[in-house]
């Protein structure tokens, strides 16, 4: 399969008042053409920073210490800002978390969509407008001709997110990065937007990176999943690998703390004790060790490498070391997965 994007050993820190915050500590992942990669993790785990590095829209106080980002064989980090302006929009499109503040409040919607086409692709105005209308229809905006001349405040949240998607698609990018695109929307609108992204991806054969902390969304959208914790990827695999055969204790905890349809009123949800580490002083060993019920002595001393589970499945936990004691995932999670597998079989069979 053709790799469209490859990130290798990325290290990023932020110069903050209190010192250097090590936000990304050696992240490597790749994205194949036409697939959807979900990056999940709690707030502050470095999901957004990683993708901002890919699109080079990091804030000024962020420093990329190390690493390589290759897009279609081009080294993105070595490019000048001017060269990179041709990657943004043309090759990589970005969808933001908060559509309410992502649009310029005093510019007409139509103009915001045609802007890049006219300024960068030197498209004639008429043609650009026709294309914008086409895009607005494609993302499901009724009365596109009329709404073309309206301002963002005249649109609802869901409609604005559709506009943001239309803007991202305007110059036909091949890679679409969605940074929590549904977090700011209510649930019914959420599923509409997710369906829209899915549909667009199929139609245009886009590669998609989907950032979220909503595991339900992941299961629905992704082909492969990267689980991030404290600036590192701790587990990587296909959706099936992650949801049916998770190996990292952090992934176990995440899955177990998510309610499902079988959760009853009195049931207690699993809680991950403690808080994520302070990234001013990242811990020496496995960053998750202090919150990990299964932590061993070595977890506090040395960082675990990525252990291979299968060709598609990797996890960074010492539990996978041949010398480690055999540890199973928590019983209730195992039970839950078994039930889900049965459901899936019924559904498929």
């Amino acid at each position, binding site marked *: 399969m053709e790799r469209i994007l490859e990130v290798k050993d990325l290290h990023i820190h932020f110069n903050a008042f209190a010192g250097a915050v090590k936000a990304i500590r050696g992240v490597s992942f790749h994205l194949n053409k036409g697939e959807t990669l979900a990056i999940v993790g709690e707030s502050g785990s470095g999901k957004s920073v990683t993708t901002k590095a890919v699109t080079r*829209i990091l804030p000024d106080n962020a420093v990329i210490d190390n690493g390589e980002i290759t897009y279609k064989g081009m080294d993105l980090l070595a490019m000048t800002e001017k060269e990179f302006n041709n990657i943004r929009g043309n090759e990589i499109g*970005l969808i933001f978390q908060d559509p309410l503040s*992502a649009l310029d409040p005093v510019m007409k919607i139509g103009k915001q969509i045609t802007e890049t086409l006219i300024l960068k692709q030197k498209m004639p105005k008429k043609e650009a407008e026709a294309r914008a209308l086409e895009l607005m229809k494609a993302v499901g905006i009724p009365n596109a001709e009329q709404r073309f001349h309206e*301002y963002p*405040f005249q649109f609802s949240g869901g409609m604005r997110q559709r506009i943001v998607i239309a803007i991202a698609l305007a*110059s036909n990018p091949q890679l679409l990065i969605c940074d929590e695109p549904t977090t700011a929307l209510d649930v019914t609108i959420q599923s509409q937007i997710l369906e829209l992204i899915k549909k667009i991806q199929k139609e245009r054969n886009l590669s998609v990176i989907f950032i979220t902390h909503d595991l339900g969304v992941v299961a629905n959208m992704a082909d492969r999943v990267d689980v991030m914790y404290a600036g590192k990827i701790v587990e990587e695999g296909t959706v099936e690998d992650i949801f049916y055969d998770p190996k990292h204790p952090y992934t176990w905890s995440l899955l177990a703390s998510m309610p499902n349809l079988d959760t009853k009123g009195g049931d207690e949800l699993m809680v991950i004790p403690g808080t994520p580490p302070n990234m001013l002083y990242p811990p020496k060993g496995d960053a998750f060790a202090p919150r990990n019920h299964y932590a061993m002595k070595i977890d506090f001393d040395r960082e675990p490498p990525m252990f291979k589970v299968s060709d598609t499945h990797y996890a960074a936990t010492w539990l996978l070391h041949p010398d480690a004691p055999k540890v199973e995932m928590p019983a209730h999670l195992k039970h839950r997965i078994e039930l889900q597998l049965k459901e899936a079989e019924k559904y498929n069979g």
Partner: protein
Amino acid sequence: MLKYILKRVAAMALTLFIILSLSFFAIRLIPGDIAGQGAAPELKAALEARYHLDKPLLEQYVIFLKNFLSFDFGESINLYPRRPVFQIIRDKIPTTLQLNIFSLALTIPIGLACGIAAALKKNTWVDYAISAMVVFNVSIPSFVFATVMQYIFCYKLEWFPFLLELEDSSFSLSKFWSMILPILALSFGGISTITRYMRAELFEALNSEYMLLSKSKGLSKLQSTLRHALRNSFIPLCNVIIPMFMNLLGGSMVVENIFGIPGIGSLTSASIQTSDYYLTIAVLFFYSCISLTSMLLVDLSYGIVDPRIRIGGGKVRE
């Protein structure tokens, strides 16, 4: 919109009426009388009779209002005896206007440029230097500036004349030369105000999400700053710039006095000093009109430049 404007104009008229009444009575509280000290009693009586000052105060007030409503603003008593007040003010406006137009032509571009530079280069030496200038200008009153400049450039260096040249009413190079210092003295405050506003507004706009979006769709930093950040940061600036345009007419009492400029500002102080009742009231009325109109214009301008107010008033359609 029309209804809104009518409402505002009505409110304005009421405000002006209150200001007028207050100034009518307040002016009588100032010590001194129109005839001046040591004037013959006959003269005093004659003057008072001419200006209805021998009648009870309330009756005077009624006469005054009646005249005012028929656009008879009265005559000057002492400063320019018997000349209609309206004429005096009309004759003073051009001088003040001339000076202030130059000052504004200096203030707005420099203020905007400094503000934009400071926001774009925030936390660099450029920003620090501009901020230092702003603090300096804001904390030193214009009359100190004016006197210090007069001392250095007129007295020590002898580059400029002390006072404004008045020989010919037409515009000449030497007249412009004599106007430079007053123009500068009038401009410093405004420059700092605009710089401060511009810096704050633009900095906020530069860090907004829509700037991130415009960057992510491939616009260069220059393009997104010009097309998005500046547009957005100019809207709140109406608040500062429109009143400045209106104040073109008003002039500055202090600076005009220091440089001997026969404008509205110096007229105000002179009329108060000479107990020229009707002239003082008329000047105060003139100032009130200016500031009330500029407030109205500011509010209306938001409705024109900001589509959120112009079209919606916040309505969202599904």
